[in-house]
């Protein structure tokens, strides 16, 4: 099987995230960047399928600034075979629709692909739809929010779990699958894996390499524009009291005062 995993470098959700004041895009320098947690699980799913199907290959695909290399290396050190990194200044500020089209073009450069795996939702943008959007562009079925994933012969089956319930989906390969945070526990890269990752091939593509016209991506031609952004004034703390055996009653009195109970 030829498996592609889409990964994204995101701001660490344990750090404070900011928007840059100039163009209202994510201030990527203000925060620590990590491989999105959910994408580690997508990589893990890909590796499990590779281990179960001899002769499989796992290719990591990322789009983002130069430092996305760290996320790519993490995926390679877990055991992915190679990586393709779409990196071009002109991509800055691309909207979800442009990002989708760009990633679809990159996937198009990879030849025969059986399965495209991704996390269901990045923790920064939370569009939560890019895998399905890529599937739509490629004319492939989208099996999203997978809690369980099985491939038997040429059929992929996904147990889709969301807040609204459980749906069992199936499709013939090739297909796009996104996984949720419960699908597995991603492995830690071993020392051997980390060393091996340094020698694995990472192809860096510019827009031209991927056959993407610069006018199709970027802030200037984005289909939507953020016109203003401002931090909300931080909420300031109110009254704080020590519990002297009447803490619950004091809260009740406060809530009555606020007409909340």
């Amino acid at each position, binding site marked *: 099987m030829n498996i592609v995993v889409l990964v994204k470098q995101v701001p660490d*959700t*344990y*750090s404070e995230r*900011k*928007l840059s004041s100039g163009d*209202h895009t994510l201030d990527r320098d203000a925060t620590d960047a990590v491989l999105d947690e959910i994408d580690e699980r997508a990589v893990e799913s890909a590796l499990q399928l590779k281990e179960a199907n001899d002769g499989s290959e796992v290719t990591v695909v990322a789009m983002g600034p130069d430092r996305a290399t760290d996320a790519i290396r993490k995926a390679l050190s877990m055991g992915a075979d190679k990586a393709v990194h779409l990196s071009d200044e002109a991509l800055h500020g691309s*909207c*979800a*629709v442009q990002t*989708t089209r760009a990633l679809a073009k990159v996937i198009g450069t990879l030849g025969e692909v059986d399965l495209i795996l991704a996390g269901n939702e990045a*923790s920064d943008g939370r*569009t*939560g*739809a*890019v895998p*399905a*959007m890529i*599937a*739509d562009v*490629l004319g*492939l*079925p*989208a099996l999203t929010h997978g809690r369980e994933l099985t491939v038997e012969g040429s059929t992929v089956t996904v147990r889709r779990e*969301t*807040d*609204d*319930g459980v*749906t*069992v*989906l*199936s*499709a013939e390969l090739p297909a796009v699958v996104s996984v949720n*945070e*419960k699908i597995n526990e991603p492995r830690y890269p071993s020392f051997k894996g980390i060393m091996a990752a340094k020698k694995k091939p990472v192809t860096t593509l510019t827009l031209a390499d991927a056959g993407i016209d610069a006018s199709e991506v970027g802030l200037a031609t984005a*289909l*939507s*524009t*953020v*016109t*203003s*952004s*401002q*931090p*909300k004034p931080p*909420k*300031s*703390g*109110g*009254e*704080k009291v020590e*519990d002297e*055996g009447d*803490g*619950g*009653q*004091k809260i009740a009195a*406060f*809530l009555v005062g*606020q007409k*909340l109970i």
Partner: protein
Amino acid sequence: MAEVLVLVDHLDGEIKKSTFELLTAARALGEPSAVVVGPAGSGGKLSEGLKAHGAAKIYVAETDSSDFLTPQVSVLASLVESKDPAAVLIGVSADGKEIAGRLAVRTNSALLGDVVGVSAVDGGAGATHSVFGGAFIAEAKANTAHPVITLRPGSVEVEAADGAGAEESVEVPAASGRSATVQSREPVTGGDRPELTEASVIVSGGRGVGSAEQFSVVEGLADSLGAAVGASRAAVDSGFYPHQFQVGQTGKTVSPQLYIALGISGAIQHRAGMQTSKTIIAVNKDPEAPIFEIADFGVVGDLFKVAPQLQEEVTKRKS
């Protein structure tokens, strides 16, 4: 007046509240037209509710296809083409986001995702985003015709309005690509507690609750207030409470009238999911816990003493 397409979210003949919010929000941009996609007989059951919330037209596409979400995308895409609407409004949910994304890329439309407000800007559509759990407010505008907008549940107050509700049946166009097939479906049946993202009161527990069994203290207080129950990431990761109740950067973003945090330290991870709550109450043993920085009223103390006492007070007041 321009039409605004609103995708109706429905289950077993019931319209979800989020659809009424969409019909209300749509009026800022034009005249709402409800779009119903579902099995045969869906349209008739829903029309009263849609009319009562201002739907001028109701497009009904009845289909027994087992293609996953593709009928919705295809019906909306063909209506975008034939009606040239001012915008398409869809509620934020796993399905809603996916339908919206696919529709936007198919119709070359701006995608304004997870917005908390909709407005007309320079003749086009504008939207307000609450970013990073409400730490930033951003205004965005569409640069294309017929933008696709997903609205976060609970961000708009539902207003009833009379609509003509003229029904028109529409065909489900043939799919252009391959689709996933639905083999089975088990919708979540709502428990007795309100849905976390729709609740006006939420009581959440953190690491300080100490165990899954002891979460009954959180649930007890929640039930006395008719509240939803939430949990911090620390509590979920420790296995105290299921993940679907997690509030925070990697869980749900909530904005209730009242948020009561029990044994939650208030790491940025959690604050980002609840800091836009109108009133915040915190109970924590640690006087230095960051949750107190954003709490309107805080009690430094043992949650196992404070919460039951509060529950008792609430119950007393009700009787």
